[in-house]
C-alpha cells in the first residue's frame, strides 16, 4: 500500500465496433480496480477514432503530465513518431496489441500483444484439420496492417492442404457490410464449405445471410475475438459456430496491470509479453465467458 503518486495515461481506439468496445470496457474496469488498490495512482483513459486524432490524444496526455503511457494504437506505423516523442522524454511506454514495423526498445518498454498472425493461423489450422478439402470464403476487415497480418497467418495455417480460398473481400469489421458480402458470396458460389470472417461482429451478419438463403452447404463459420455472444454459441454447441479464436480485448487490462506493477512492485517490467490466440471450443468456452462485458 504505497502512496506514491503515479499518473498513467491510457490511449485506446474509440469504441467503434465490438472489439474496441471491449477494449474500452476492460481498460476502464482495470483502471478503476488499480486506482482502488493504489491510492496514489491516477489513470486517465482517452479514446480516439483514428491515428491522427490518437497522435493528438497522446500529445494531450503528455500535456497533463504522465509517468507512463499505455497505448493500443488504432494503426501502429503512423503513431510511431508520436509514441517516440513521449518515450524520449523518459516516460514509460507500454505498447499493446498492434506493433509497428520497427518494434524495439526505442519505441516502447513493454509490449503486450495479442497475436494477429496466430489469429489467422489458428483458424486456418482448424479448417485444415476438420475439413481438409473445404472451399472457403474469407471476409476481411479494413485495409490496415493487422488485417494483412491475419490474412498472412491464415494462409500459413492452411498451407499444404487442399483447402481452397474462393474469395476475399472487405467487410470493414461491420455487421451490415458483412451481411452484404456474404449474401453476394452465396449468390456467386453454389457451394461454400466454410466461412472465415475473423471477427465476431461480422459473424452476426454472416449468420443472418446464411439463414436467409436457407443454404445447407455451409458447414461452419469461424470468427474470432471472443465476444460473449459467440462464446455462448460455442458453449451451447451451435453447429455453425463450433469454435472461436480468442483475441481478448482484456489484454489492455493486462498491460495496464503490468505497467502499474512497474511502479508499485519492485520488479521492473520490460520486454515482450504475448497472449495466445487460444482456440475456444465447447470444452473450454466456460472460461472465456464474461456476461457483463459489452462485447
Amino acid at each position, binding site marked *: 500500500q504505497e502512496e506514491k503518486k503515479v499518473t498513467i495515461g491510457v490511449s485506446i481506439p474509440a469504441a*467503434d465496433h465490438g472489439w474496441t*468496445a471491449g477494449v474500452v*470496457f476492460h481498460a476502464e474496469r482495470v483502471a478503476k480496480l488499480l486506482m482502488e488498490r493504489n491510492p496514489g495512482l491516477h489513470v486517465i483513459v482517452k479514446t480516439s477514432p483514428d491515428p491522427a486524432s490518437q497522435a493528438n490524444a497522446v500529445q494531450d496526455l503528455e500535456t497533463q503530465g504522465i509517468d507512463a503511457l499505455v497505448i493500443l494504437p488504432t494503426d501502429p506505423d503512423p503513431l510511431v513518431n508520436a509514441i517516440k516523442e513521449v518515450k524520449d522524454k523518459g516516460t514509460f511506454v507500454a505498447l499493446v496489441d498492434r506493433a509497428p514495423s520497427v518494434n524495439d526498445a526505442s519505441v516502447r518498454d513493454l509490449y503486450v500483444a495479442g497475436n494477429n498472425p496466430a489469429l489467422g493461423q489458428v483458424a486456418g489450422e482448424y479448417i485444415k484439420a476438420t475439413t481438409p478439402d473445404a472451399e472457403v470464403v474469407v471476409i476481411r476487415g479494413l485495409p490496415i496492417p493487422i488485417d494483412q497480418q491475419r490474412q498472412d497467418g491464415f494462409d500459413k495455417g492452411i498451407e499444404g492442404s487442399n483447402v481452397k480460398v474462393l474469395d476475399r*473481400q472487405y467487410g470493414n469489421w*461491420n455487421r*451490415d457490410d458483412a451481411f452484404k458480402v456474404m449474401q*453476394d458470396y452465396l*449468390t456467386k458460389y453454389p457451394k461454400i464449405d466454410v466461412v472465415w470472417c475473423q471477427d465476431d461482429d461480422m459473424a452476426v451478419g454472416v449468420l443472418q445471410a446464411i439463414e436467409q438463403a436457407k443454404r445447407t452447404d455451409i458447414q461452419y463459420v469461424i470468427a474470432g475475438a471472443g465476444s460473449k455472444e459467440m462464446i455462448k454459441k460455442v458453449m451451447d454447441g451451435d453447429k455453425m459456430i463450433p469454435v472461436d479464436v480468442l483475441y481478448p480485448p482484456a489484454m489492455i487490462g493486462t498491460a495496464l496491470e503490468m505497467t502499474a506493477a512497474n511502479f508499485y512492485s519492485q520488479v521492473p517490467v520490460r520486454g515482450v509479453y504475448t497472449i495466445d490466440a487460444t482456440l475456444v471450443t465447447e470444452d473450454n468456452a466456460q472460461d472465456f465467458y464474461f456476461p457483463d462485458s*459489452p462485447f
Partner: protein
Amino acid sequence: MSVNQESSQVAIRRRSWRDIDLRAVAPFVALALLLLVGALVNPNFISINNLANVATRSAFIAIIAVGATFVISSGDLDLSVGAMVAFIASLMILFMNSGVIADPVLMLLTAILFTIIAGALCGLTNGLITTVGRIEPFIATLGTMGIYRGLTTWLSQGGAITLKEPQLQEMYRPVYFGTIFGVPVPIVVILCVTAVAAFILYRTRYGRHVVGVGSNRDVARYSGISVNRVRTVAFVIQGLCVAVAVLLYVPRLGSTSATTGILWELQAITAVVIGGTALKGGAGRVWGTICGAFILELVGNIMLLSNFISEYLIGAIQGAIIIIAMLVQRSLVRKS
C-alpha cells in the same frame, strides 16, 4: 394566326414530352446499362434471387433517400441520417428490451409507434436548429450527426445493443425476411413509401410548396408560404423515413451498434442526386431517387460478383462507376 399558334403548340407538346421524359428516364437508362454489365460479369447476377437480394438490401438507403429528396428539394441538406438510424434503432431495441409491456404483439406495435415518434422528433430537432437557429443545414446536421452518434455510443457503452427477447425477435423477423405474394417485404415497403412520397411531392399543396421554397425562398415568402414551416416539415418527413428504415433494419440483425449507418448520409444524398434531383433544390424526383439507391447497391454487388477485380480496387472502381453513370445521364439529357 390561330392556326399558327395551334401548330406551334403541337410542336411544343411533342418537344416537352421528350425533354421531361428523358431527364426523368436517364437514371433508369443508367440502371439498365448497369444490369447489362452485371449480366456479362456473372450469369448468376441476373437471377431473380440475386436481384431481389440487392433490391431488398437497398431498402434502407432507398427509404432514407426518399426523405432526403424532400429535404434537398426544399434547398436543405441532412447529414445526420446515418447517425439517426443508429440512434433510433438503439432506442427501439432498448425499448423492446425494457419489457415494460408483457404481451409481445402489443409490445411490438408500441415499439413501432415509439420508433416513428422518435424519428419525427429527431427530424424536428434538425429542422428547428436549421430554421429557427438559422444555421447552414450542412453544419447544423453535422452537429446533430455528432450528437446522435455520440448518444448511441453512450447508450451502447461502445458495444452492441441486441434484441434480447427471442419471442419478439421471431415475430419481428419476417418484417425484413418475409415476403408478400413472393415479393420481399422490404421491396413492398420501398414501393409504398415512394408512392406516398410521390403523391405528397407532386399532388399536394405541401409538395408544391417544397419545390417553391427550394427554388426561391423569397418568392415563396412573398407568396404567403411559411418557409420555415415547410422546411421543418421536410426534415420531419426525413425523420419519419429514417424511422421506417429502422423498422426494417432492426429485424435484420436484431442488433445495432455505434457504427450502424456510418456514411449512409452520403449514400442517401448520392442516390438522390443520381436520381436526377439537383442539390440546389427546387426540383424533386422521387422515383429517380429509388433508382439511384438501386444503382448504388448494384455497383457494389457487381464488384463482388466479378472475379477479375482486386478487392483493393473496389472502392476506386465504385467511384469511377458513379462518375460514369452521371456522365451517361448528362449526355442523354444534353442530346434531347
